[in-house]
């Protein structure tokens, strides 16, 4: 299996890597670029822990080939805070205890950010359905929904 050379942009930085043709973007991010904030919970698109943005679309990076990243813009959890400035979602997740073990948190934050960019004023039901592909086993989702809404309110006010 011959490896492929890929030029892409990750969190705004021009990035090059080589990967096997059957290697997922998630594996590339984690094993080749050492961006381990994206997690593998299932490898089949059923848990959302590997959520990233590819060209402005929310996707599971386990369902994208690394090779497909050629020329694309990838955004991961590692790019969400600007230096020490947390994104309002990140801050509200901490303040609202919306995480316990934290393994699903990066994926949920990436997904929630995508939601609020599309819909700055969602209902609870809209948040719940948007995040249905992000499994969390610790929180029962209650505090996650509240934290997303608190962040949304702050972002609308800003």
């Amino acid at each position, binding site marked *: 299996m011959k490896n492929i050379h890929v030029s892409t942009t990750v969190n705004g930085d021009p990035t090059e890597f080589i990967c*096997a043709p059957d290697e997922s973007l998630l594996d590339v991010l984690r094993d080749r670029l050492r961006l381990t904030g994206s997690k593998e919970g299932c490898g089949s698109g*059923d848990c959302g822990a590997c959520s990233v943005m590819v060209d402005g679309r929310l996707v599971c990076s386990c369902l994208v080939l690394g090779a497909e990243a050629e020329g694309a813009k990838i955004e991961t959890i590692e790019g969400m805070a600007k230096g020490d400035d947390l994104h309002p979602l*990140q801050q509200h997740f901490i303040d609202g205890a919306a995480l*316990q073990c934290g*393994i699903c948190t990066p994926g949920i*934050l990436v997904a929630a950010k995508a939601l609020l960019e599309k819909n700055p004023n969602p209902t609870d039901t809209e948040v719940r359905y948007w995040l249905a592909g992000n499994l969390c086993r610790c929180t029962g989702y209650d505090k996650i929904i509240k934290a997303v809404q608190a962040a949304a309110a702050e972002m609308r006010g800003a």
Partner: protein
Amino acid sequence: MALDENGKRTFNIIGTRPPRPDGIDKVTGRAMYGADATAPGMLTGHILRSPHAHAKIKSIDTSAAEALSGVKAVITSADFGVPEDDYTRDVQDNCMAREKVLYDGHAVAAVAAINAGVAKQALKLIKVEYEILPHVTDVDAAMKPDAPIVLAGYAMDGLPKGMSENVTHHFEFGHGDMDAGFAKADKIVERSFTTAATHQGYIEPHACLATMGGDGKGELWVCTQGHYHVRGVCADILGMDASQLRVTASEIGGGFGGKTTVFIEPVALALARKSGRPVKLVMNREEVFRASGPTVSSSTDVKIGMTKDGRITAAHATLRYQGGAFPSGTVQFGAQSAFAAYDLDAVQTIGWNVMTNRPKEAAYRAPGAPMAIYAVESVVDELCQELGLDPLDVRLKNAARKGTKSAYGPTFDDIGLEATLEAAKAHPHYAAPLGPNQGRGLSCGFWFNFGGNTCVTMNLNFDGTVGITEGNPDIGGSRASISMMAAEELGISYDKVRTIVADTNSLGHNDITDGSRVTFAVGLATIKAAREAIKVMCARAAKIWDIDADAVYWEDGFAKPSGPNAGAFEPMSIEEIAASSPNTGGPIAGHHEVNADGAGVSFGVHLVDLEVDPETGATTVLRYTVFQDAGKAVHPDYVEGQMQGGAVQGIGWALNEEYIYGQDGRLQNPGLLDYRIPVASDLPDIDTVILEIPNPGHPYGVRGVGETPIVPPLAAISNAVSRSIGLRMSALPMSPPKILKALKSKG
């Protein structure tokens, strides 16, 4: 250590909601979990697993795999010794099958290779010759005398006639005259129930990184609830001294009991030893389902007698739990906890642990209790319906309270059940109107909680800040709670304290993070360690003031002279004492090592409204409220989080989650798609009401809270469904086909 003499003390920090110390790492993706570590020259480990439920291993030929370029080690059970100790041998045999495979997914060989592609290719080159044996996966079938024997030699002492050797333990609890009790009843309900095996469903699969040098020293990075336990078991299996194996707990992506044992760790260490290189081993999700430790499935008979006015006269339960391919120890907790919420004159529970060809069960949040209490609370609810009684009134009438001789033997001290029931009764949820096809259900829940072996060290830095070193992986925010307790005791602010989870070399033994023990036991040890440090700090201040150490006391972060007779000194701050510590005798620390007791039992009550679609059998949970006694809620957000998370796991158990086995004994749904844990859109808000009835066994009154919340949802949901459809449900999960079938049977 008992509740502080000044039991009614006010707290400055306990009960507030400061941000967690691991928060920023976790929201930025920096936190390091089991699969996130790397090492120079690291290999990838993969495991070959049995496709059969039960088979004899006739031969394993690994030569082709070994010959494959890029493969650095291949191991089978032959690479391990045979431990003398039963427990260690069972754990090892579960990690790598010897002679027989006992379940679909049982490991038979493992490889370490330069990358995943080569490792997967190597697995395909391993030839295993199996002789397929008959299998059994159902608990009732496995108890029958003609059932296939899963493992010979484990039958219980004095196995009753007519029972299979698969029955490994029998337990019986209770007191009083059963016949007389039932004779007094106006109404007796007797019913049988089943629950499916469910999985803890942590989102992080098991993962570790093992290194073994030629000098026999080992390093293990692993996601686990108990790295000291991992060290002990792995050292035993690999024939190492405990001191030579250092285990570091990674951040842990959920456990719920499922990470209290080992599955891949000894395999990774053996591969590292054989290859001479670091080996990372990560389960995929399918492996997690097939080969980690789900909870038991159960079959239960319950019989309860009640008077017209709602007094329970006698209660009986027989519980049969299958715990998979090795002897398990779960049914005793079911048999003990089944009737814990009730004050009974006549009660008896009988439990049987049974082996089947399924993965060996591991603990799952209040292990053994949810299935038992589900059956009991269902029958209590049915009696209330039959007798036209309010289900909360009946529970209040029969509630266990201080002085009640519990169904499992001991007499209860201060417990919060009555207050919890009263809170539920007074809550607007209980009086809210219900619409068509809607039902309301409730259930009590109980868990014992415990303490256990715990070590904490508190180091005072020269700038007056404090480092706490403890040895229990943080699965729900415990580093925050421990820092809070340290800050409270020292009288300093929360942000002056940092708590870390140490590796196995840095502290003495710490028991696993389980039994809802950490906030209780580690908190208790932290308070004691802080008090020891305070004693030293007071002595240092006394030295400086040149007065007697007894004449100094500690308050709000300052050493103070205890009265005018002691001398007129300005209070000395922790910063001043810390800064001068090199001059007054050296660094200051406090530590405490204890096997903590007195955890205090925990009760909860859950209330649910739901609607059943009469045409499809689909259930929608509309409203959910959790009431629980937390003793003292150290960080109320995390207490609520435990209550909410446990409730939702229980909701999943009640409605959709199950291990589905085919006729061939293979697991049909080893993935998150078809295992169906609840998603965000399945649920309403989970409201919480925390009650605080102080635990007399803790200086701040803390009780464990983590496990109890998974107990009540099973019956609460089942009772609500049963009331909604007008038919008593008796099998979990209540998936839509099951409910629709019941509705059809009603006509």
